[in-house]
C-alpha cells in the first residue's frame, strides 16, 4: 500500500504526470457515461414510444424491462456478421468505426461540471479544456459524415448509396445553419472555450443564460435545436434512413455489431448535440438559481443539473421522433437553405449590432 500512496504523491507533485492521469480518468468517465447513456436511451426510446402508441414496450427483462439493453447487446454480438459479396470490403468494415469515433471524440470538450478543487489543485470537469474547444467539437463532428457516406458507397446497394448521398448533402447544408446559429453566443461570450462560456452564465437563469437575459439568443437556440435534429439524422429529418423509401438507407446491408456501432453513434451524437445546446444556450452545469451550498455539495448538484438538462433534450428527441412525420427530401433542403440559414444570419447581424452598440 505504501508504494501506491508513494506513487500517488509522486504524480501529485509532477504537473505533467498529474495532467496525464487527470485526462485519462476524465476520458474514461466520459466514454463510460456515453456508453451507459446509449443503453439507457435505447430503453427510454422504446418505452416512451410504447407509451405514445398505447402499447407497453419492452418490459420482460428485469424490472420495467431495464435490463433489455443488456439482452440487446448480447443479441447483437451473437448475430451473424454479414458482408455482402459485392461490397468494397475495407471501407465496409471501416465505416462503422468512422461513424462512432468522431461521435465519441466530439464530446471531449464539453464541460460536464465546474472547476473543482481536490488535492490542492483546480480540476475542470472537462476532458480537454481547449482554447478553441467549440471549434474542435464542430470540426470533429463534421467528420462523422464520412462514416455514413462510406457505408452507403461501400455496400454497393442502391438504397445504401441513396442514403449516403442524402446524408452528405443534408449534413453539409445543416452544418452551415448550425455553425452560424452559434456565432451569436460567441459574440455575447467573447470566447470559444466552453468552460468560460458556461462560467459566464452564472446567476438567476432569466438574467444569465444565453437563451434568456444573458444574450437573448432565442432565435439562435431554435435554429440550433432544429439543425441538431438534421445533423443527427433523427426524425423528422432522417432522410439517410427513411425506411419507407430506402429500406434502412445507409445501413441497409449492415448486421450484428457493425449495425450496433452506427446505432451507438447516432445516440452519442444526440447526446453531444443536447450537451452543446445546454452548454451554449442554457447555462451548461449552472443551476440557474442561487443555493446555500458550497464545496462538493454544490459541485455534485451542478453535475446533476447538467445531466437533468441533457436528459430533457434527449427525451425531446424521442418525443419529436414519435410525434412528427418525416419531411420530403426537397423540403428538408429548402428548410435548411431558405429558412434556417437566413434566420441564423439575421441573428448574427442583430446580435453583432447589439454587442457593438453596448
Amino acid at each position: 500500500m505504501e508504494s501506491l500512496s508513494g506513487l500517488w504523491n509522486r504524480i501529485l507533485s509532477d504537473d505533467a504526470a498529474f495532467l496525464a492521469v487527470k485526462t485519462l480518468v476524465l476520458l474514461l468517465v466520459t466514454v463510460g457515461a456515453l456508453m451507459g447513456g446509449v443503453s439507457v436511451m435505447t430503453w427510454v426510446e422504446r418505452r416512451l414510444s410504447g407509451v405514445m402508441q398505447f402499447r407497453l414496450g419492452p418490459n420482460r427483462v428485469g424490472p420495467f424491462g431495464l435490463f433489455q439493453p443488456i439482452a440487446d447487446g448480447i443479441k447483437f454480438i451473437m448475430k451473424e456478421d454479414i458482408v455482402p459479396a459485392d461490397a468494397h470490403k475495407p471501407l465496409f468494415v471501416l465505416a462503422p468505426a468512422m461513424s462512432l469515433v468522431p461521435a465519441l471524440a466530439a464530446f471531449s470538450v464539453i464541460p460536464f461540471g465546474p472547476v473543482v478543487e481536490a488535492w490542492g489543485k483546480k480540476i475542470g470537469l472537462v476532458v480537454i479544456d481547449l482554447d478553441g474547444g467549440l471549434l474542435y467539437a464542430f470540426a470533429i463532428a463534421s467528420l462523422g459524415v464520412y462514416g455514413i457516406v462510406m457505408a452507403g458507397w461501400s455496400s454497393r446497394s442502391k438504397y445504401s448509396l441513396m442514403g449516403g448521398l442524402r446524408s452528405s448533402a443534408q449534413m453539409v447544408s445543416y452544418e452551415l445553419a448550425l455553425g452560424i446559429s452559434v456565432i451569436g453566443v460567441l459574440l455575447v461570450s467573447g470566447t470559444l472555450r466552453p468552460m468560460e462560456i458556461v462560467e459566464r452564465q452564472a446567476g438567476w437563469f432569466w438574467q444569465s443564460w444565453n437563451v434568456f437575459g444573458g444574450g437573448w439568443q432565442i432565435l439562435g437556440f431554435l435554429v440550433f435545436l432544429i439543425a441538431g435534429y438534421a445533423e443527427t439524422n433523427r426524425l423528422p429529418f432522417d432522410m439517410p434512413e427513411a425506411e419507407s423509401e430506402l429500406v434502412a438507407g445507409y445501413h441497409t446491408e449492415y448486421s450484428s455489431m457493425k449495425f450496433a456501432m452506427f446505432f451507438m453513434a447516432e445516440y452519442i451524437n444526440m447526446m453531444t448535440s443536447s450537451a452543446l445546446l445546454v452548454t451554449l444556450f442554457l447555462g451548461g452545469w449552472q443551476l440557474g438559481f442561487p443555493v446555500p451550498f458550497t464545496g462538493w455539495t454544490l459541485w455534485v448538484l451542478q453535475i446533476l443539473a447538467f445531466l437533468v438538462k441533457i436528459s430533457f433534450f434527449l427525451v425531446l428527441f424521442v418525443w419529436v421522433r414519435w410525434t412528427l412525420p418525416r419531411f420530403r427530401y426537397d423540403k428538408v433542403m429548402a428548410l435548411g437553405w431558405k429558412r434556417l440559414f437566413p434566420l441564423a444570419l439575421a441573428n448574427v447581424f442583430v446580435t453583432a449590432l447589439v454587442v457593438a452598440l453596448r
Partner: protein
Amino acid sequence: MATLAFFVLAVLAIVSAVVVITHRNPVISAMALAFNLVSIAGFYLLLQAQFIGLLQILVYAGAIMVLILFVVMLLNLRHEPASHRGGLQRWLAILLTAGLVYVLGRAIWTEHAAFPAAPAGFGTVENVGQALFRENFYPFEVISLLLVAAMVGAVLLAKRRL
C-alpha cells in the same frame, strides 16, 4: 515527442498523398485526400497554430471534401483505363515538380536557422482574430469581396435561368 509525432504525421501525409494520385478508384482517392487534409491539420497543431488546424479540419475535411465525394459518387465513375497520358504534359509536370522541389528545398535549407520561435499566445483564436480584423483588415475585406463575387459568378454560370 514532437519529433516522433512529426514523423508519424509525415509518413501518413505522404502515403495518403501518393494514394490520392495513384489509386484507380476515385472514391478511394477522395478518401485518401480527406485523410491527407486531416494529417496536415496535425502539422498545424505541432506548429502551435491551433486555430488554423481546427479550421483545416472543419472547412476542408468536413465540408469541401464531403462535397467532392458527393460529386464523385453521383457521377458513378467506373474503373477508368489509364488513357490520357500525353508526352508533353508528362515532361512538363516532371520539370515543374523538380523546379518546385528545388525552390522550396533551397529556401528551407538556407533559411531554417533564421525561423523565429512562436511567440506566446501564437495561433490562438484571439491572435488570429487580431491579425485578421486589425492588422490586415483591408486585405481581408477585399478577399471576402472577391470570394462573394466568385460565388455569385458560379451560381449565375450554373443556373442560366434564375
